[in-house]
């Protein structure tokens, strides 16, 4: 009985501790993301092999010394393709998230600041967009505008926009009556300046976490579309495309499919862990 109360007394502290990930995890995640960024900017640092070089005699080599992660059906080095694919994936993920944010900020500001009628209209528009599961929306977009990296980015961006828009709108509504906004208005600052300098940054701060994880999500969505053959087309070294091309050979050469997928998982994991870490720091739950 005493143990119970003792436990209960310590429970809040203990709860904090197991929600907090050990710094080891977070640092690994951040390190991975940094390495990924480096790979995207300077792939030459990681590999000298040309990811598009076809060497038919070396097709389907298993992972080994010459080719760390093996080769694919045309003899292309998989590690090289993954490194170069990092640029594709990161580019797509960041661009798509950027598009989502632009749409979200536009709609969120409109809804949050425009008055009741506009707000209702925006809310209604969001409902309409929300009515589609994200992949279905992306498929519709691709159906109309064709496949390829450009439509892929826009489609993925569209898929994520409604979620962010709702959050932005909520944040804008919460922040617009804050003290510092009143003060700024009282001081006579122009509305645009208030919005840009005070409102938006404060509204967006809690979204940083969501955005970080969102980039990971965008990469997964884009990979899913490429996996279906509707995004980056072969022989582009995009991870989803590589996964799809390797699918037929999974019985003979599992490494074609396994490694691109592994990197997608690691990227998503890294963005999630990093995002959580940032959140916990922001909320002051860490020392």
């Amino acid at each position: 009985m005493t143990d119970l109360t003792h436990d209960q007394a310590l429970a809040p502290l203990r709860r904090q501790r197991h929600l907090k990930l050990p710094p080891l995890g977070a640092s690994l995640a951040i390190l991975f993301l940094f390495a990924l960024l480096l790979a995207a900017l300077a792939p030459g640092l990681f590999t000298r092999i040309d990811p598009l070089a076809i060497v038919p005699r070396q097709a389907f080599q298993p992972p080994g010394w010459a080719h760390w992660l093996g080769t694919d059906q045309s003899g292309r080095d998989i590690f090289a393709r993954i490194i170069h694919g990092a640029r594709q994936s990161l580019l797509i993920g960041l661009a798509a998230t950027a598009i989502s944010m632009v749409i979200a900020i536009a709609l969120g500001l409109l809804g949050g600041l425009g008055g009741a009628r506009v707000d209702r209209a925006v809310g209604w528009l969001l409902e309409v967009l929300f009515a589609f599961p994200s992949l279905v929306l992306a498929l519709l977009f691709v159906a109309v505008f064709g496949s390829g990296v450009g439509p892929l980015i826009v489609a993925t961006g569209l898929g994520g926009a409604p979620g962010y828009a709702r959050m932005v709108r909520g944040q804008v509504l919460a922040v617009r009556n804050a003290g510092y906004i009143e003060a700024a208005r009282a001081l006579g600052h122009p509305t645009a300046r208030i919005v840009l300098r005070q409102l938006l940054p404060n509204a967006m701060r809690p979204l940083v976490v969501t955005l970080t994880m969102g980039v990971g999500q965008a990469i997964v969505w884009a990979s899913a579309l490429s996996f279906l053959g509707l995004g980056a087309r072969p022989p582009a070294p995009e991870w989803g495309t590589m996964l799809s091309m390797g699918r037929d050979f999974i019985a003979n050469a599992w490494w074609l499919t396994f490694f691109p997928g592994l990197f997608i998982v690691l990227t998503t994991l890294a963005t999630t862990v990093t995002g959580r870490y940032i959140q916990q720091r922001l909320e002051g739950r860490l020392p």
Partner: protein
Amino acid sequence: MTTTTLAVTDPRRERLAALGRRAVIRLAGGVLVLWAVATLTFFALRLMPGDPVLAILGGPSGNPTPEAIEAARVEYGLDKPLAVQYVFYLGRLLQGDLGVSYSQHLPVTRVLAEQGGATLELTIAALLLAWVLVLLLTVVTAGRGRLVGGIASLAETLSAALPHFWLGVVLLAVFAFGLRWFPPAGSDSFASLILPALSLAIPLAGFIAQVTRESLELTLDQPFILTARTRGLSDLAVRFRHALRHALLPGVSLSGWAIGALISGAVVCEVIFSRKGVGRQLYQAVQAQDLPLVIGISLVVAAGYVLANILVDLLYQWIDPRQQEAAA
């Protein structure tokens, strides 16, 4: 019995009435949303490049004669101005006619009827499986100490990070091709449902578990839990009977979104596992530029999703009336 000024109405009836009102409002809103969706898809798909007549008449290998093309144009109403086509289209929609698929030469409603069942089966199975996993993982391991919690948390984060298309291929390779525990293809047997449902359920379970775990741990610290414990209830009983009901709320609200994610996932999983379903059908329709089928499936999916969200919302209301004024 004379009424007094302090008339107390039956709280239960009040709640039901409020729920009913809300349901009507949401349904009406849903209909409007669907109208907007139908309009959006109609005009979007009319913008598609390529002549739909060629798609109808057999695609790349067909060699239609001029008469056949004219006949098809009239048959599908493609010779009229866009606005007229739109009005006809809405009219047919109201009568439940979604047109005829270009690639399958079947009414779209029939395609949906034949394929919808399999997707519904997959989605429900995945959702149930996800919840089973969530409950097992969180209820048993919440609040038990740093190591257990840490491991469980790691498992959840890892599962949530698994892309379902990769998981599906890996599960297929290991369990169907390699170990031969499950059939590699098919939509008929129960056994063929397990691997696709798992590949959708595991990532979803990861998401929901994270949220439910947080909420559960918060709940487990509440005073009423202590009270229940002092009454001598076993730990498991406390967790399941008392804590869970309160902790479920965030998970339930996520389930609405989850259904949408599952439908998206079903598209890919049906392709990987060679299953019947509207997901794979939609994908093929997009490839074949089959307008009526793409519109039809998108509409029905949207309708289903809207309905599911309304139901989830009502369920949420029912469980927790304090949320009456929840912001949109």
